[in-house]
């Protein structure tokens, strides 16, 4: 009966109920991320097979209700309505039954076959609450099973139950019938009428309380929704009374003890900054090793190509400088990105990020932002593009726009390659970590200053209530963190593989054409021939050295006759005050498209991607020989502040709803970068 059957199941549940852990355990690596059309909430999809049936499993975003208040809720609600899955697997945090069952009741009202999974049952037991699952199943009219997701306990039977549940025709349960077609009984509220809801001192609600039918201005639906909520919680209270024993044990958990420090009035912020500092230091130190391996691979690849095809040609230059130079130069930084994301994921999963939002609310508030802005801002350290997407959870438009505006100042991982190239080139090991930290800090300070300014442009609308759940701290599972880290890394690689490659080729084109005239080429050939004739063949090393000098001179000559050079030269009057020359300017043109292209472009400008095969080493030493540490610092400072990348520009236009905003952001930040960098250079000189 189950042969080749396709079953469509969704996982739904509150945030932090262990849903993702369960999803990862059920689907393993067979996952894809789909974006819901119109909004930017990620939907994770995966497959699992069980007894000949293929289960297509979708992990809905974590939500508290189906009220469509946030994008996550809207996506979940719309998904259930439009896709009508065969089974809903409602993951419930067993240690927090009361709040979780609220969503359960809402989901049950959808009339889709459902399985309730009481996850983290071990924590519930630790807290001294015993749940009678049979009684709960009767009350809810659904199957109820228990699991401990992070230890993989109870998962075996889940897939089978999904298959079985999908095969059963949906039958109204006893509870459904009792509650009149799945709606919770609103009896109690109707008895006491609106008096039970002195909801607001606002006049329209006052009106409601007194007039029999509604004043029309206030929403009848709002009152009805509120009544329904009250009724649901009453129903939950009754369910709990019948199914849970010992349900209240006043707990001073280890979370409270941690919070005493981590949320401390004065210590909280320094601890947060310290944590970030440690994360960045670790990223730097641990990333060193795999970076070296990747570098060796690419230099081996370059060498092999170089030796197999000794003749200079258009195609060889394209492959070596455009493709390998571009992609290789970006891939080299993958270890750092993975390590950074790993730590950020750990912080997020452990429950600390919610505390970070609480800690920052006060300061965010002062600069016209919302405590919830901290999440996009922290994601912004990874990549501004997803950060801008995650800013959608800030429902207040003014606060969202401000957050969007300052997001590019939170140094994204694409700027990291620039720092990793420039900082080691100019600064000794002991200063590298602190300088990196300083550059991130400068970004944050600039963001504060700008958002203060931006928030003054807008008028304040109705204030958004700041409310955030403080989940108990828990140890993140390696699997969940690992999968998410790899997935972020993969997103970076995909970007590197497509957009960056394209840009890298265009830029290579700019540096390659129009190039030397045939006469000029002949001149260099003549020099080589003269050299070969003058130096006896037994002094090979001397010959090679001299030839390399000519090669290098030819490359320089070639570049100085390219489109990029022309652009770089044209920009020189603007670049001079910052201490930059046209070569840096040429690389900055690349950085306009995508920040990480700067590195690849510097490699091409200095033509170090090929000859020696140790491109990066050579580039580092070339930079060290050409510029001062002050200029080095100015480069990273400018790259930090100036011109958000093309993807960010497009995203800003989309998320703010206007190209004007995107242009304003681009122009303002670039101008600001110029002013700040010029100041630093002129003062530092």
């Amino acid at each position, binding site marked *: 009966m189950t042969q080749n059957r396709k079953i469509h199941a969704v996982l739904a549940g509150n945030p932090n109920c262990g849903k993702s852990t369960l999803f990862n355990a059920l689907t393993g690596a067979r996952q894809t991320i789909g974006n819901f059309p119109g909004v930017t909430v990620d939907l994770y999809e995966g497959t699992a097979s069980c007894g000949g049936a293929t289960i297509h499993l979708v992990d809905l975003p974590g939500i*508290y*209700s189906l*009220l469509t*208040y946030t994008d996550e809720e809207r996506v979940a609600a719309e998904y259930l309505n439009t896709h009508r899955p065969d089974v809903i697997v409602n993951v419930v945090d067993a*240690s*927090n*039954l*009361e*709040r979780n069952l*609220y969503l359960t009741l809402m989901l049950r009202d959808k009339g889709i076959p459902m399985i309730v999974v009481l996850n983290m049952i071990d924590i519930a037991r630790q807290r001294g609450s015993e749940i009678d699952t049979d009684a709960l199943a009767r009350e809810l009219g659904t199957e109820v099973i228990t699991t401990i997701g992070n230890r993989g306990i109870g998962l075996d039977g889940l897939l089978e139950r999904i298959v079985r549940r999908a095969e059963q025709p949906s039958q109204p349960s006893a509870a459904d019938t009792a509650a009149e077609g799945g709606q919770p009984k609103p009896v109690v509220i109707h008895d006491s009428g609106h008096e*039970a*809801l*002195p*909801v*607001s*001192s*606002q006049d329209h609600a006052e009106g409601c309380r007194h007039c029999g039918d509604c004043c029309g201005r206030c*929403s009848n639906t*709002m009152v009805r*929704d*509120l009544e329904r*909520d*009250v009724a649901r*919680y009453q129903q939950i209270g009754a369910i709990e009374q019948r199914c849970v024993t010992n349900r209240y044990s006043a707990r001073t958990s280890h*979370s*409270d003890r941690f*919070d005493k420090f981590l*949320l401390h*009035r004065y210590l909280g912020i320094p601890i947060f900054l310290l944590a970030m500092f440690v994360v960045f230091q670790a990223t730097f130190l641990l990333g060193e090793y795999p970076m070296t391996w990747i570098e060796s691979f690419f230099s081996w690849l370059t060498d092999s190509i170089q030796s197999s095809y000794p003749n200079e040609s258009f195609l060889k230059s394209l492959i070596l400088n455009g493709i390998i130079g571009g992609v290789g130069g970006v891939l080299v930084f993958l270890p750092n990105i993975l390590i950074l994301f790993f730590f950020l994921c750990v912080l997020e999963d452990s429950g600390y990020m*919610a505390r970070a*939002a*609480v800690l920052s*609310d*006060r300061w965010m*508030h002062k600069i016209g932002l919302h*405590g919830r802005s901290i999440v996009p801002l922290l994601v912004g350290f990874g990549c501004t593009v997803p950060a801008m997407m995650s800013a959608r959870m800030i*429902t207040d438009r003014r606060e969202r726009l401000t957050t969007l505006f300052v997001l590019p100042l939170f140094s994204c991982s694409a700027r990291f390659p620039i720092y990793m190239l420039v900082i080691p080139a100019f600064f000794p090991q002991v200063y590298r970590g602190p300088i990196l930290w300083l550059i991130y800090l400068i970004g944050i300070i600039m963001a504060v200053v700008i958002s203060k300014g931006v928030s003054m442009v807008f008028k304040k609308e*109705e*204030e*958004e*209530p*700041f*409310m*955030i*759940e*403080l*989940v*108990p701290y828990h140890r993140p599972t390696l699997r969940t963190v690992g999968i998410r880290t790899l997935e972020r890394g993969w997103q970076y690689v995909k970007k590197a593989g497509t957009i960056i490659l394209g840009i890298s080729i265009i830029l290579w084109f700019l540096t390659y054409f129009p190039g030397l005239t045939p006469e000029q080429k002949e001149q260099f050939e003549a020099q080589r021939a003269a050299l070969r004739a003058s130096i006896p063949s037994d002094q090979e090393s001397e010959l090679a050295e001299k030839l390399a000098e000519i090669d290098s001179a030819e490359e320089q000559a070639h570049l100085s006759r390219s489109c990029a050079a022309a652009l770089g030269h044209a920009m020189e009057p603007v670049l001079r005050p910052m201490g930059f020359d046209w070569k840096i300017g040429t690389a900055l043109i690349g950085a306009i498209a995508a920040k990480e292209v700067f590195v690849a472009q510097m490699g091409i400008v200095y033509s170090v991607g090929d000859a020696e095969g140790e491109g990066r080493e050579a580039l580092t030493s070339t930079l060290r020989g050409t510029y001062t540490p002050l200029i080095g610092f100015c480069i990273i400072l400018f790259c930090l502040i100036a011109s958000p990348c093309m993807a960010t520009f497009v995203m800003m236009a989309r998320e703010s709803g206007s190209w004007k905003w995107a242009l304003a952001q681009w122009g303002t930040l670039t101008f600001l970068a110029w002013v700040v960098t010029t100041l630093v250079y002129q003062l530092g000189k």
Partner: protein
Amino acid sequence: MSADIIPLYRAAAEARVTIDSLDLGENGLLRLSSMGLFPGARVRVIDNSRPDTSIVECRGTRLALGRGLAHRIFVR
């Protein structure tokens, strides 16, 4: 019934209070009510010492409420 009605942020730590009313717009009200915060709900105050945030427990959930919010929730 005769107990004083005070804004939530002025309640003492460890106090168990009942929500009397909420002075919020429609969205705010609905959002809070979906979390079970509506008149009649019992709330345990965990920490009110921070100037900017009230930390409370309601229905087994630890919640941090911004200062704006804690000023607009009235409890007894």
